[in-house]
């Protein structure tokens, strides 16, 4: 019994220490100027949203937020379609060269984005897509598609072949089977794919730093980085910006925790 309480106590201490940095950041973002002298772990006594308003309007975070939502949402939706279609072909259609193709997709799991950013920049530039959201979206999709092709493949393998055969015999085309038979029963992997790709896209800095140098194209990650350089003394604004960037992914995580956990353990290779 004593051991059980000790265990609970130790875990509680760890959980509190793990949450402390985030909680103190939220506290700071809500403190009026008069309370800034208080220790960081003091909650705000007269909470104010003035820093959020300032960051959102003057700091440009409203615009950056819009850019980030646009890129991440398109990334997530398009990823669901291209990865599931490719996986459908890999599982349900026979064609020559399948093994080679599997190997080519496997390569994608090994390529660290960091290692190829220089030629990636040149490639995107040769398409005239620097400072275009489309350029970042295409790069995001290319660099993560392997993970999701394999995630969909391992899910589709579990679908009884008889289901596919039956639809075939009824005269359905491959595209009809994909749309009306396979996709409707793939909700779990669709949700996981959408969530993970949205989060990766939302959080990425390197590709956005490289491919979207113009101020009005910026995402939250680049905005926060630049803000840090210019506002080192203005800790309230900085923490409000941090919270703005964190809230959407934290909210998604709390709502879909089980999907996230499953996705992150199976897609952990990236």
């Amino acid at each position, binding site marked *: 019994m004593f051991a059980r309480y000790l*265990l609970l106590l*130790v*875990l*509680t201490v*760890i959980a509190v220490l*793990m*949450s402390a*940095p*985030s909680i103190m*950041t939220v506290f700071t973002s809500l403190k009026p100027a008069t309370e800034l002298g208080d220790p960081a772990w003091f909650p705000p006594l007269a909470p104010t949203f003035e820093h959020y308003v300032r960051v959102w309007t003057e700091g440009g975070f409203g615009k950056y937020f819009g850019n980030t939502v646009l890129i991440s949402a398109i990334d997530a939706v398009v990823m669901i379609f*291209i*990865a599931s*279609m*490719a996986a*459908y*072909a890999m599982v349900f*259609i026979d*064609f020559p060269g399948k093994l080679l193709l599997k190997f080519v997709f*496997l390569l994608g*799991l*090994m390529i660290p*984005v*960091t*290692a*190829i*950013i*220089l*030629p*990636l*920049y040149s*490639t995107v530039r040769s398409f005239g897509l620097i400072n275009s959201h489309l350029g970042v979206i*295409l*790069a995001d*999709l*290319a*660099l993560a*598609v392997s993970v999701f*092709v394999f995630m969909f493949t391992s899910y589709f393998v579990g679908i009884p072949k008889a289901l596919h055969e039956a639809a075939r015999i009824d005269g359905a*085309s*491959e*595209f009809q089977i994909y749309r009306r038979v396979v996709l409707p029963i793939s909700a779990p992997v669709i949700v996981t794919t959408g969530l993970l790709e949205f*989060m990766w896209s939302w*959080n990425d*800095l390197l590709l956005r730093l490289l491919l979207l140098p113009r101020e009005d194209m910026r995402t939250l*990650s680049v905005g926060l*980085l630049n803000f*840090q350089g210019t506002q080192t003394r203005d*800790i309230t604004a*900085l923490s409000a910006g*941090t919270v703005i*960037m*964190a809230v959407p992914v*934290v909210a*998604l*995580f*709390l709502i879909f*925790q089980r999907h*996230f*956990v499953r996705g992150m*353990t199976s897609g952990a290779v990236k």
Partner: protein
Amino acid sequence: MFSDTSSRLSKVLAPLLFLLPALAIYLTFAIYPTLSVVQYSFHDWDGISPDMEWVGLGNYLEMFDDRIFWEAFRNTFAWSAFIIVINVGLGLVIAAMLSRVWRARLILQTAIVLPVVLAPVTVATIWRWMYQPDGVINEAFRGVGLEALATPWLGSPDVVLFALAFAHSWSTIGLSVIIFLAGLQAVDEDLYDAAKVDGATTLQAFRHVTMPALRPVTAVVFILTLTASFKVFDIIWATTQGGPIRSSELLSTYMYKRGALENNYGYGAAIGVALLVIVSLATIIYMQIQEKKDA
């Protein structure tokens, strides 16, 4: 006859149409740049002019003679080693403790795993603030009378790398905990009962039942942490950019500086190839372990 050709046509076309969107994007923006990075690494190129000058192994030879490259190389390994010790060691201990708790498990687990979804640039901003000379960490040390431990964390060449590695671990250990938890759930309950009958203590059971059963999972976490830590760029760039005096310079930040900022694409690419080789090797080992586990 006609229907035969058309059905054969559709047989070829169907897989092509399904694969085309993914494959076109993937080959253009992932595979082609990967092949190019190898090509660049044999050339001198500023990234803009139409001509690349072939220099053979020149960039690699320069790399092997480059003191800063080796410093970044050593830093990257030290960085990874530190993160592996924390994420694998502490990750396993936390997961083992969590697996023995039922009530309050969800809230404890959520608090520990939550930082995983935060962006590295967010993590960087939070910890840069906490690590300031008059920041909350030094305040806490002073508050409990450990004045001697207070230090300018990101300004001191001796501790900056580990201070940042600690921040990185804070935000990634949740992933190890999740994977270990899944592994722990798969350990056969009967083994624990047998150990209990034999009079084993909880610690002995952990040492002789849990740890051997978790060996494959541990290998997975090890390699994942290794590859992830080698790819790190964002958190360093958003805090010290490799400083002070290169004490937190990693291969990724050095490559970015030489390649993208100084327009020395050939040399940057050679560093990129080094990264590519290290990470690919680790990933191949990882996949081999995964396959063995599934078989």
